């Protein structure tokens, strides 16, 4: 029994949105990181992770997201999250992750803020 993560990307002017569908565990985190680093190689410095399709994450998957945050800080880029379940949002606050990557309630608000 495996629950794989589907990742899709929407490239926009100056910002890319990564959509996830499924469980963010170690493999899921690696899938997200692979797409994120590809986007950085393409020159994107603002990434939005839309987790509307993800209802459960684990700390191993989140630790890979922290690697992406670290990379974004190194290049002076922006990483944001939107459309989190209340529990995932609470977990990110427990970890202090929200201090380094802002959390937005919806995609429109995130795109507006991240482009500002």
């Amino acid at each position: 029994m495996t629950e794989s993560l589907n990742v899709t990307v929407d490239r926009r002017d100056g910002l890319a949105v990564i959509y996830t569908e499924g469980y963010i565990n170690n493999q899921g985190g690696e899938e997200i990181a692979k797409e994120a680093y590809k986007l950085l190689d393409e020159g994107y410095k603002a990434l939005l992770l839309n987790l509307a399709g993800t209802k459960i994450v684990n700390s191993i998957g989140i630790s890979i997201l922290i690697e992406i945050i670290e990379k974004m800080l190194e290049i002076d880029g922006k990483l944001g999250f939107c459309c989190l379940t209340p529990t995932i949002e609470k977990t990110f606050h427990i970890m202090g992750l929200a201090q380094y990557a802002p959390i937005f309630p919806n995609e429109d608000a995130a795109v507006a803020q991240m482009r500002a």
Partner: protein
Amino acid sequence: MAEGVLREVTLALPMAPEMELEASKTATAIAESIRMSPDRIDEVRMAVVEACINALEHSQAPDREVFVTFQVLGDRGPEKLRILVHDNGVGFSPEGREEPTMASKLKAVRKRGWGLKIIQGLMDEVEIRSGAEGTTVVMSKMR
């Protein structure tokens, strides 16, 4: 007080990929049966996933199993869900652990080690019993 055990279910999980999701499904079913709110059920699920991952990954249990016991507690009706995640592994010293922070993890090579902090943040009560006979994480949430 919510101390009588009204119902108890135990799962024995083999150490195989994504077994934590099996425990999370059982947690959901039992929490729904006592009419816990959906947001609180989600928090229980996540805490169970973290406790199971810790046991599955770090216990080094010779029987290669993790035991998850769900207890519905209450006096006249269900009031609390208590979950015990037990392994027969090598144990660890909870007191010796350094609490993870984002500031330290951003600089560190190893960015993992968040499980207990997440469990403590999501559940109402958490107790860790660890020694030569393994580790048991006992965590509870009021309905």
